[in-house]
């Protein structure tokens, strides 16, 4: 029995040594200080914060997708949601999550850097452990991100995070105006993320989108500022708790404050109630 315990103890020690040997040495001082709460500089409702909303973004769309975008704007003007489907609380996905509409926390760990956005299923996981692209990717709204920390000036500290993201599903749009990404979901998003050289309370994200709905890559630089409070308040956001949009069939309706279904556009037909026993009185 003592012999067996010794084997178990040796096995556990060996397992621990393997675990330690596999863990890269973590030296926090080699990475930029990204602690705290970050908010966007500029309007988070626009993909390019330096340009006006909607058509003013001047997205380099192909004629086919420009027509889709314009039809989407007409639908929104009539009370619809157009192509921007986050009213149902689905994840905005990439690259829209870089707009910074929620409170952002950046967590740097030896193998992964997390961009956590307190909003709707939009926490990003960027693998920095040297992995290659998997042979098969499960498509997601946020995609699969691989990053590399780089020491550009050779001072022994990383100052740039380069990220590439692939493996998407849709539908996705760039912002609430409904600028669409291609339905083939073969988007590639490349980012360069770095602290401002003169202000350590600002970081920049140069976002380059390559997508078949575009005539050329769409490159936008976004900036975020750190909240001065080092113990900031983190608001809990639960989209479904307060959402009053309802999708039935191909129609978007709303639920009124008194709990009744209401149309979202003029002369919108009510939902089809064929599955109900029509002799029953309507509910409250």
């Amino acid at each position, binding site marked *: 029995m003592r012999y067996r315990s010794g084997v*178990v103890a040796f096995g*556990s020690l060996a*397992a*621990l040594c393997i*675990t330690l040997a596999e863990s890269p040495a973590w030296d926090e001082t080699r990475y930029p200080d990204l602690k705290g709460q970050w908010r966007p500089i500029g309007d988070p409702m626009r993909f390019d914060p330096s340009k006006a909303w909607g058509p003013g973004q001047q997205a380099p769309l192909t004629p086919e997708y420009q027509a889709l975008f314009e039809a989407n704007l007409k639908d929104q003007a009539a009370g619809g949601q157009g192509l921007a489907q986050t009213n*149902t*609380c*689905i*994840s905005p996905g990439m690259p829209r999550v870089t707009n910074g509409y929620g409170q952002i926390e950046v967590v740097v760990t030896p193998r992964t850097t997390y961009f956590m956005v307190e909003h*709707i*299923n939009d926490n990003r*996981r960027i*693998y920095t*452990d040297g*992995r290659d692209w*998997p042979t098969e990717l*499960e498509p*997601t*709204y*946020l995609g699969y991100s691989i990053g590399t920390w780089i020491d550009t000036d050779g001072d022994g500290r990383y100052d740039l995070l380069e990220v590439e993201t692939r493996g998407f599903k849709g539908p996705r749009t760039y912002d609430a105006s409904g600028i669409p990404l291609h339905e083939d979901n073969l988007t590639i998003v490349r980012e360069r993320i770095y602290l401002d050289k003169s202000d350590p309370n600002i970081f920049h994200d140069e976002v380059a989108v390559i997508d078949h709905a575009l005539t050329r890559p769409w490159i936008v630089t976004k900036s975020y500022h750190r909240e001065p409070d080092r113990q900031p308040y983190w608001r809990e956001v639960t*989209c*479904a708790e307060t959402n009053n949009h*309802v*999708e*039935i*069939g*191909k129609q978007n309706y709303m*639920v*009124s404050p*008194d*709990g*009744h*279904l*209401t*149309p979202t556009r003029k*002369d*919108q*037909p*009510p*939902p*089809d*109630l*064929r*599955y*109900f*026993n*029509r002799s*029953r*009185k*309507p*509910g*409250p």
Partner: protein
Amino acid sequence: MTERIFFDKADPTILHDEITLIDHAYTRPWAVLKSYQRDPGKYPIHSQEDCAATTANVLIGKELYYLSPDRELMPTRKDQPPPDLSYFKTHDR
């Protein structure tokens, strides 16, 4: 709710969480030990769960309905009344 989170002393791939709930619905604190196993894969898959993209539940007022495969409204219990459509101009569908 208080927690004590720690690795298993004998197995570093197991994480324990001792949870104690103190609540006026209980006659005494409720303490539960939960344990978690580390995925042995070098690059484990973290799938993205997006409840809203797949859910078929629809809450209108205090009534929960269900969406059929053709995305039309269905009752969730026998003789459940349909939603009130009085805010629609035509509600005789």
